[in-house]
């Protein structure tokens, strides 16, 4: 016998009470754990995905939408901007690097992006198989795209308009897989990369279908002064459009002058990823705070429930306590035994809660495409979980201190004489 097995047996002797207390606490802890995992991973993913991008320039509309669409690829484009106008901004001396993005099509829900290789290289993308796209209609695909769609090198596919799999399909044009990227744990895992020209070509075909033979396909042969943004296109071409442009500043001065410069142009707007994601978090923050508050209420109630359970059970155990004292137990030992009981309860509750939290996140990650694409993984553990565990043990301590003091003060003679 020892104190631990004594306390363990007391807990086992009241299985319903014990299980109820553990469940109550574990629910609260699970909610906190889920919020912790989501918050941490969202933050990590957002910083990872927005790395190296200081400003997004696109068509006027919601700046948040611009960021969600062009950095996280979770929303629809705000519209198109003129390539020539974009070039003007790209030439600004405050711009270190400008990357064009042409969106609009997808394959089986994975977005096809017309851009230069600079874009995947922002995320230090490495080719696992094959190589980078070179010719028009060649693509290099992200790791998740390859894994989920079972695409191999030289496979061909046709794209659909929009982001959903049931959009209008561009059957005439076939994309060809030229390369597959290594997994990077960032947004590029879920993207299909091609040249801007490929996107244009697909949509020219699209327009031809609608307007007949009015417009002949443009030829890309006679280029004398190549565009700064899209190589192989004449600079200052006023007919071409792109969806947006990602910008990296040359100096911090850019952050002050460039957004104002862009926004003063009537057709375009500039949005800062840092500012917009902060705004997004503050919007979500309200909901998160309510959930968090709810979790703390649950935890408080479970503390109260543990207190009541111990308090009541000690009333039944007055004789046990007195007998133990008569057999040589010190007051301190009885005090510690009750504290141990409370702490053991919260320990199991916290453990169950942490496991439950990770389980729920893992299940969500496996079941919901959105969480998968946001890169949420339930099998990552954080240092903060130790804080949750230690906090729970403290809760056990606080809940059991009054009953423990009761046990400490047991008047042996009075209890034993009272039979």
């Amino acid at each position, binding site marked *: *016998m*020892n104190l631990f*097995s*004594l306390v363990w*047996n*007391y807990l*086992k*002797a009241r299985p319903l009470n014990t299980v109820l207390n553990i469940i109550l606490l574990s629910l609260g802890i699970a909610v906190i754990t889920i919020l912790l995992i989501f918050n941490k991973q969202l933050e990590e993913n957002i910083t990872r995905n927005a790395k190296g991008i200081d400003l997004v320039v696109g068509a006027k509309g919601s700046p948040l939408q611009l960021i969600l669409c062009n950095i996280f690829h979770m929303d629809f484009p705000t519209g198109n901007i003129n390539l020539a106008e974009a070039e003007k901004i790209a030439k600004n001396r405050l711009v270190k690097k400008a990357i064009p993005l042409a969106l609009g099509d997808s394959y089986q829900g994975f977005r096809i992006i017309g851009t230069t290789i600079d874009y995947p290289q922002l995320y230090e993308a490495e080719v696992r198989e094959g190589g980078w796209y070179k010719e028009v209609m060649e693509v290099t695909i992200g790791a998740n795209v390859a894994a989920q769609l079972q695409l191999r090198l030289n496979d061909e596919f046709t794209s659909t308009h929009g982001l959903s799999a049931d959009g209008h399909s561009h059957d005439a044009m076939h994309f060809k897989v030229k390369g597959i990227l290594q997994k990077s744990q960032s947004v590029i895992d879920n993207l299909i990369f091609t040249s801007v020209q490929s996107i244009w070509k697909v949509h020219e075909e699209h327009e031809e279908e609608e307007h007949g033979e009015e417009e002949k396909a443009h030829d890309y042969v006679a280029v004398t002064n190549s565009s700064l943004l899209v190589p192989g296109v004449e600079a200052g071409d006023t007919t071409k459009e792109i969806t947006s442009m990602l910008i990296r500043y040359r100096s911090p001065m850019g952050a002050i002058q460039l957004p104002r410069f862009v926004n003063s142009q009537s057709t375009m707007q500039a949005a800062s990823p840092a500012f917009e994601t902060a705004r997004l978090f503050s919007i979500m923050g309200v909901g998160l705070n309510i959930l968090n508050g709810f979790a703390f209420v649950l935890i408080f109630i479970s503390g109260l429930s543990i207190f009541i359970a111990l308090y009541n059970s000690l009333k039944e155990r007055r*004789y*046990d306590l*007195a*007998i*133990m*004292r*008569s*057999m*040589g*137990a*010190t*007051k*301190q*030992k009885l005090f510690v035994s009750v504290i141990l009981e409370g702490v053991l309860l919260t320990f199991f509750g916290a453990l169950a809660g942490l496991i439950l939290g990770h389980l729920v996140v893992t299940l969500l990650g496996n079941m919901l495409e959105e969480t998968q694409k946001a890169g949420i993984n339930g099998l990552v553990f954080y240092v903060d979980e130790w804080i949750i565990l230690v906090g729970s043990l403290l809760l056990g301590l606080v809940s059991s201190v009054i009953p423990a003091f009761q046990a400490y003060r047991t008047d*042996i*003679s009075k209890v*034993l*004489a009272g*039979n």
Partner: protein
Amino acid sequence: MIRSASLSYQYPNGKQLRFPDVNLSAAEQCLLLGESGSGKTTFLHLLSGLLKSQQGAIHINGHEITKLKGSALDHFRGQHIGFIFQRNHLISALSVKNNLLMSPYLAGLPQRSERVDEVLRQLGIGDKKNSRIQELSQGQAQRVAIARAILNKPSIIFADEPTSALDDKNCELVIELLADISSQNKSALIIATHDQRLKSHIPKQITL
């Protein structure tokens, strides 16, 4: 073994009780007789150090226990004294075996499983070792309580009304067991009781 001199106790309500002197040697047995409310339990609690704030002196095994305080007194009690009460007060969350092992554990003595077997066999309940307390009859439970009291081979056993809840057959059994164990283990035995059935078993009697 145990020796008390001019012991008295004042109740919180002011009533004062004076107790006769007790002097028992090892293996000696004695009945403490008296009506309910005559202070038998108080006397027993004083002698065993469960109750303090008395006047007078108590020596057990050569230790003056009125001078012991706090944990030292608890410790002394665990190692030298065994208790048996009217109701058995076993810990119902524990098995019979673990109830018995609480005794050496709380006294800070080594926990020996063979000793548990030995005592249970001695009391004729060897097959109840792994039973739950709720499964025992009242007579069996009282014997488990006796087993717990004597497991550490205490120098002195205090029994407070050990037989009053038992029928004649069990009463006979328990008093004989107690007397046997006391002489086998060389433990002094003091039984506080108003149970007239015991009078014929133990000749030495103190009446309050």
